């Protein structure tokens, strides 16, 4: 076998099958006069090159030369075939180079990893936000109602706050000027919960659940207003809806990617990643609260003050429950896994003078 590409005497060993039986016949392939020539024991065939389909290179698998009249050749001599085809300037499949080089494989890998990371960090939150802003109010109402129903059943107890006090807070909240008007119907409902203590949370439909513990903890009604503004920020920015959308997309992609491995494994990262999202959302709600407070001539530092108290109350309760745990752990250590950013950091952002 010659190595010169212009030499017409290049021969490549192949196995020929006629397509009618499984009989294998050893042949030598060569090119002459615009035809592909097959020569073997008592066998001589020729096909115009235009009637021969050459399979693309696929790793080290045999190359197949299929003839339009039926029959094909199987070639295991990769290098020889490349030389033979080079004689007639046969083109390669456009992916040939890409699929068989390590640098390209590594490039594709890096591009994929960067694309996934970028999609997760930017595309997903953006998509969820765009979509959640288009969710009709009736659907948010439904989501809020069903959430409250479940919580009332398992977590919440009726409030012991007297009606006059509730009315007073409702009026203060109604008088609060807010940055943007929305189509949602905002209201406060009062509940108590020994487990959750001093807290308040927003439902997707604009209802804010105020727990007795928080009203008792606050020394100043403006502190309560700060919390209400923060919670309203969550609703305005559709945080609950966005969380649901984001975690379901992440879950879907992971389930598709991990495939048969384990669906259990697919849900765990989704939950951890979700915690990170809600940290960003807390900041967003803080910004909303800050704007609201300033618009009403109130100090945004009040939110920091009440958050500090809520945290202290929470830690005290934890200590009471698990005295063996000793002193409260350093809050910053829990920062990564917790869904609430460390209060100190939030205060610094909102209330730089302090």
């Amino acid at each position, binding site marked *: 076998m010659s190595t010169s590409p212009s030499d017409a005497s290049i021969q490549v060993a192949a*196995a020929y099958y006629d397509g009618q039986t499984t*009989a294998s016949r050893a042949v030598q392939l060569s090119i002459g006069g615009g035809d592909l020539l097959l020569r073997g024991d008592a066998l001589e065939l020729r096909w115009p090159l235009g009637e021969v389909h050459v399979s693309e290179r696929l*790793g080290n*698998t045999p190359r197949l030369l299929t003839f339009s009249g039926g*029959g094909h050749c*199987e070639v295991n001599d990769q290098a020889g075939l490349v030389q033979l085809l080079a004689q007639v300037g046969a083109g390669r499949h456009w992916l040939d180079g890409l699929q068989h080089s390590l640098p390209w494989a590594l490039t594709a890998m890096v591009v*994929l990893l960067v*694309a996934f990371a970028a999609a997760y960090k930017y595309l997903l939150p953006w998509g969820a936000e765009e979509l959640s802003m288009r969710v009709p109010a009736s659907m948010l109402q439904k989501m809020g109602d069903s959430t409250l129903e479940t919580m009332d059943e398992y977590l919440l107890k009726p409030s012991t706050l007297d009606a006059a006090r509730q009315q007073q807070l409702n009026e203060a909240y109604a008088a609060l000027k807010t940055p943007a008007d929305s189509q949602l119907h905002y209201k406060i409902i009062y509940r108590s919960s020994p487990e959750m203590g001093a807290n308040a949370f927003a439902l997707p439909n604009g209802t804010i659940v105020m727990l007795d513990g928080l009203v008792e903890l606050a020394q100043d009604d403006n502190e309560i207003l700060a919390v209400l503004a923060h919670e309203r920020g969550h609703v305005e920015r559709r945080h609950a809806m966005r969380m649901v959308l984001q975690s379901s997309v992440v879950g879907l992609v992971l389930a598709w990617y991990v495939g048969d*491995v384990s669906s259990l494994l697919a849900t765990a990262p989704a939950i951890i990643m979700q915690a990170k999202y809600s940290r960003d959302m807390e900041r967003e709600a803080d910004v909303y609260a800050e704007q609201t407070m300033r618009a009403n001539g109130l100090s945004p530092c009040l939110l920091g003050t009440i958050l500090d108290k809520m945290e202290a109350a929470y830690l005290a309760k934890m200590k009471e429950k698990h005295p063996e745990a000793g002193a409260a752990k350093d809050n910053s250590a829990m920062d990564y896994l917790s869904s609430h950013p460390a209060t100190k950091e939030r205060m610094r952002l909102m209330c730089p003078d302090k």
Partner: protein
Amino acid sequence: MQEQFGQKNQSFEFTGSGWEYFKIWIVNLLLTIVTLGIYSAWAKVRRLQYFYRNTRLDGGSFDFHGTPQAILKGRLIAFGLLLGYNAAFEYDPMIGLGVAAVLALVMPWLLMRSLRFKLYNSSYRGLRFGFAGSTGDSYKAFLLYPLLAMFTLYLLAPLAHQRIKRYQFDNSRFGNASFSFGAPVKGFYILYLSSLAVMIGSVLLAVALAMMMGSGAAGAAGIVSGLMLAGPFIMLVMLVAMLVVSSLFSAYMQNLVWGNTALGPHRIFSHVSARRLLWVRVSNFIGTVLTLGLFMPFAAVRMARLQIESMGLAVSGDLSGFVADQQLNATAAGEETAEMFDVDISF
């Protein structure tokens, strides 16, 4: 390779390599994502061709001839069905149930077409495989027997499984030669019952061990702490048992089904080792998790090597005597018609 009475055992060989497939896989995955999934049909053809062409028997290799267009069409149909199904349920559960019933009625036919697509597009030494199963039999295998199994509290599940395999294998063709399937129903029952027995046995063992651990401490406190320990412990034992049993089950099932199948005069044999299957599965899983999925092409190659190289053909005479089926070729003559109606709904 042993020879007796003109018979010789010819093993399948698998010549793929993990690195080689990784390079093909990652480039095609990137293209799939860039084209929002459309290119996945082309990627699938390439994947199948890579695995088929690396599978060799007696010097010849297999090949896959399906077109990406047919696969894309199949995927669009599957996606449409799924979407319609979910939308119907969202709209009204009653309509959803109706759609589910219609799907169940269409499914056997779709599965039959899918088998035909897969086999007709597979070849060895230039000869196509084929599938001659009738529509009526596909309804028996894919609808009647599974329903029977359901209504008998799965007492007939092994029978239903055997009927599905029998339908698939007995109706397969290579050229004008037929596959014949002889795995007895008894074999399926033995496999199902022994898997169940091992599973129940390991749970009982776990509970017994947990109770022993609990009884170490005295009184009510001992029982409580024993129970607290027992929960996770039993879960762990169940998980390990499930892994072991599912590997045993798949290995013996492959051996049962393939080991009782013959192609014309040539008997097929299959000796997958359950222990090696378990090892490949566990190590593939760990590798895939640790590399965030980048190990998947290596895992696929390892699994294919184990499954393919455990099989072979007890060749009587030689393998050069198969002849193309003129009738099959005639019906599939217009490849266009074949592609119009044959879909591939498997992913």
